[in-house]
């Protein structure tokens, strides 16, 4: 008669179909659990084992994981918002207003996207400060710090490109001011601004270029960098456990006496 849920699960995990997908098969030994992580295309970025001490809240405040979590929320809500948004100059503003007042749950998704974006910028900076003040950026993790700096720049660029998309006064002037800052670069500044906006002023071309950057180029770049960032945690010896305990030093006088005797 009906077996317990555990038995059913156990049977399923032993089946051929399950084992063709998850090659590690049934069992809960330490080796088995390590294999589950090591043989999964997503999980294999991470270490199969971690010190219990470095998983405590106090060590990292989970800031890196929270940054990644807000990014996941932004990807999902962003894709949903794309279904109602046309990146064309007269319509973009109306679509944004439709999302607020006409689309079911539109205002919830838009606000979730907006607040998560603010939260992600905050969490990324908090993560960097935590890593910096703990000294976790030092060797052998210095390359991962550099990847992290590029992730921070990607986060800021995503914020900036997303800011234009509502196509309101705030967006227009923020991007006018920002693109004029870019044109202050010596020699190539004006050319950079021209390529960035696809013209001499913030208009339909600029909106489309910022849309493509915001929805395709920057997120794909960020996903690749995030994968490298996670993988390097494992390769660089796992999460930083904190400074080595200092060896107990013999005071120099006592040492000299010890040598004389």
């Amino acid at each position: 008669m009906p077996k317990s849920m555990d038995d059913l699960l156990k049977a399923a995990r032993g089946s051929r179909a399950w084992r063709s997908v998850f090659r590690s098969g049934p069992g809960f030994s330490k080796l088995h659990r390590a294999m589950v992580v090591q043989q999964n295309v997503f999980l294999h970025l991470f270490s199969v084992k971690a010190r219990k001490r470095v998983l405590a809240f106090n060590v990292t405040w989970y800031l890196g994981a929270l940054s990644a979590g807000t990014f996941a929320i932004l990807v999902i809500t962003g894709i949903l918002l794309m279904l109602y948004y046309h990146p064309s100059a007269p319509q973009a503003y109306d679509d944004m207003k439709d999302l607020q007042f006409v689309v079911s749950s539109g205002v919830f998704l838009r606000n979730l996207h907006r607040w998560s974006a603010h939260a992600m910028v905050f969490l990324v900076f908090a993560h960097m400060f935590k890593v910096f003040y703990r000294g976790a950026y030092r060797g052998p993790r210095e390359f991962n710090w550099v990847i992290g700096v590029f992730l921070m720049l990607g986060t800021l660029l995503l914020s900036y490109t997303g800011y234009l998309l509502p196509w309101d006064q705030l967006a227009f002037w923020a991007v006018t001011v920002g693109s004029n800052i870019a044109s202050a670069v010596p020699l190539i500044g004006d050319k950079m601004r021209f390529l960035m906006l696809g013209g001499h002023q913030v208009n339909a071309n600029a909106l489309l270029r910022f849309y493509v950057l915001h929805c395709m180029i920057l997120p794909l770049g960020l996903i690749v960098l995030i994968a490298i960032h996670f993988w390097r945690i494992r390769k660089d010896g796992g999460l930083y456990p904190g400074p080595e305990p200092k060896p107990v030093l013999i005071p120099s006088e006592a040492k000299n006496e010890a040598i004389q005797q």
Partner: protein
Amino acid sequence: MSEDAKKPAEQEDSLNRRQFFVKLGVGSVAVAACGTVAFGYEFLSPNVLYEPSPLVNVGKADLYAPDSVTLDPQAGIFIVRAAEGFYALTAICTHLGCITAWKPELGIIACPCHGSKFNKDGTKIAGPAPRPLPRLKMWVSDEGDLMVDRSNIITGRELVRV
């Protein structure tokens, strides 16, 4: 023995087949990369822009009261009618591109974004703007309308007399 010793010396000054093909491959990829950069730059630079013309018709002279400063916010220019004649200034702040405004009560042009201030002849009173507001070429068309070319910055201080 002597032949073995000779062989490496020969390889140093002449390419073997593998080295030749490696060089050829790296060279062609480098040429293709340069082509891709040029192609990408050309592709990203629009050849036709659907932007408003830099030429603006600002109407007849008698639209403007004597000794007045008038902002055309659409065109982003000031039409100034001084006692002796007209001149045009850009209204785009030289700091970061905001549209400045004429403050009649203070007799100055001020930028709402970062607080730059200018006299009505365009000279700078206070920053952060790095340069004065430039004057634009202005003339009277055959129909008697005042015309401004926003792409043509002039350095002289001549006035347009109507």
